[in-house]
């Protein structure tokens, strides 16, 4: 083995360790690691740039711009308040309806955006019903991750997989939406079972909520119409990919351009609001993974994995599902999936395994495994931060007690689904 082989492994592990330690911002760590990969001569700048998946970046940036503008009209709040009203003030109904709304929103919006929109609503509803907001907060975390599994754009790991493996929006929907719905329903059922005694309110408080007028949430009707128009165009773009062959970045950035044209807003403000730290984190990761790939580390890992499963398709799929689940519970699922993508491709090349089920296993494990701990996914970290600030701190172990069993049950359902649908 050449020294670059060991240097790249060392660099990669050091970068991962620093990201996990959270001592330095993950974006800075990933970028510094990527630059070292190049400056230590492991890869050239050309190879690094080739490794950056601009389709993923364009899709993320486009959606961030569109949603950033659209949320100012109040339509997402309208839907959430409307759902609370439809629950006729009954806390359990409201809990279920808000949970479903979280799952649906997160299938089409980034999970962090979803929880930032939904957490304030849940606080307001819980305050009106005079019940503890914690069950709502924990439910919001869990359902944002299970719902985000359903589509190509629902969760960053899906965007990464879809872009790298050239899987269309519709294929994601057909293959992952059924299991995402099932796991979301099971999760909601278990949550209601756990929290049913806390979800009670007096008739008077119930009346307050059922008297909500959702229209008061809409602050800008012209913007609402434009936003619905642009979001419909984007969805249409994704649905018709097989005909138009337009890629995700083109569709999302096209939507962003249309949105900026229709609203005639100053683009400077909206472009500043793009989460550039996330975008640069992705760039750093892509380059780090190219480094590992280039020196043959990924191939070696793939060979080891095949030795372990003896090339058996069922065993390989389950190892990927549960391995991804466990890893994503402990570390951020984005770097994990970025590393796994070339590995899964390698499995196809080495053993000739059909890749479809392996991609679904990777997506399911990463998205749903992220639910297990408070640090498993970005949405979890964001909600726990807000909860602490508002005086409803969710402790790490308190969360584990609820989330580990629910995540475990979810992964069991995923195993059964993968087995019955793809492996028999």
């Amino acid at each position, binding site marked *: 083995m050449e020294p670059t082989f060991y240097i790249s492994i060392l660099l990669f592990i050091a970068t991962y360790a620093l990201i996990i330690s959270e001592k330095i911002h993950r974006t800075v760590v990933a970028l510094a690691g990527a630059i070292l990969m190049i400056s230590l001569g492991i890869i050239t700048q050309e190879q690094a740039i080739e490794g950056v998946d601009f389709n993923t970046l364009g899709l993320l940036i486009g959606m961030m711009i569109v949603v950033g503008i659209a949320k100012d009209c*109040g339509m997402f*709040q*309208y839907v959430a*308040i409307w759902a609370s009203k439809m629950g006729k003030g009954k806390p359990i109904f409201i809990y279920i309806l808000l949970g479903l709304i979280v799952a649906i929103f997160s299938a089409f919006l980034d999970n962090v955006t979803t929880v*930032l*929109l939904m*957490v*304030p*609503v849940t*606080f*307001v*509803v819980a*305050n*009106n019903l*005079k019940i503890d907001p914690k069950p709502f907060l924990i439910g919001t975390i869990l359902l944002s991750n299970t719902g985000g599994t359903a589509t190509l754009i629902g969760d960053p790991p899906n965007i990464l997989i879809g872009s790298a493996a050239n899987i269309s929006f519709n294929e994601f929907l057909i293959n992952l939406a059924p299991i995402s719905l099932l796991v979301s329903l099971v999760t909601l059922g278990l949550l209601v079972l756990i929290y049913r005694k806390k979800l009670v309110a007096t008739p008077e408080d119930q009346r*307050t909520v059922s008297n*909500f*007028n959702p229209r*008061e*949430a*809409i*602050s800008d009707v012209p913007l609402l119409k434009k936003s619905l128009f642009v979001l419909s165009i984007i969805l249409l773009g994704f649905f018709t990919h097989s005909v138009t062959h337009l890629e995700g970045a083109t569709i999302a950035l096209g939507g962003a351009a249309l949105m900026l044209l229709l609203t005639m807003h100053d683009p400077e403000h909206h472009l500043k609001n793009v989460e550039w730290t996330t975008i640069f984190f992705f760039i750093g990761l892509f380059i780090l993974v190219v480094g590992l790939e280039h020196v043959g580390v990924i191939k070696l890992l793939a060979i080891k994995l095949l030795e372990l499963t003896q090339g058996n398709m069922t065993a390989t799929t389950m190892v990927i599902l549960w391995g991804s689940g466990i890893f994503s519970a402990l570390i951020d699922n984005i770097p994990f999936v970025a590393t796994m993508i070339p590995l899964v491709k390698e499995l196809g090349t080495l053993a000739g395994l059909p890749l479809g089920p392996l991609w679904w296993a990777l997506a399911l494990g990463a998205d749903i495994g992220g639910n297990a701990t408070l640090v498993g996914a970005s949405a979890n970290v964001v909600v726990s931060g*807000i909860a602490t*600030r*508002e*005086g409803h701190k969710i402790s790490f172990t308190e969360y584990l007690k609820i989330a580990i069993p629910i995540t475990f049950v979810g992964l069991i359902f995923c195993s059964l689904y993968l087995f019955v649908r793809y492996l028999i």
Partner: protein
Amino acid sequence: MMIKNTVYRVKDWMQTDVITISPSATFTQAVATMVTGHTNGLVVAEKGIVHGILSSMDLIRHLVPDYLEEDKHLAAFESGDQFVTRISEIKNDSVKKFMTRDVHTIKSSHTLMEAAILLSEFNIRQIPVVDDAHKLVGYINRTDIKKAIADILELDA
């Protein structure tokens, strides 16, 4: 009308009777001080050293939960009793938690033009005036500047 050709300085227009509050005082004490002093702005200071400014807007911002500050669409739906509930939750919070930090200060020998620039640039209401040892000696606010303008224009007070 003849414009006076003199340099207006902070020391001639500032107020020396400053109402201060300690950074460790509570929300309740801050409200009491504002009510009895008939003022909307207090200088947060300890042993003469300025730590911050506390305005009635700071009190209101602290009262509104963060999750609503970021989402105006939900204002109409918040439970009515939250006004009372929030106040009882925050009444013992210390002033340093919700005061405005990073205050701009000015020295009494500086010009009113400089004071005006600070007030307009940072869109603030008042500036604490300190001496060379950074000890609080007074403060100057928008009203004081307005009085100086009226003086130049030779308007009757």
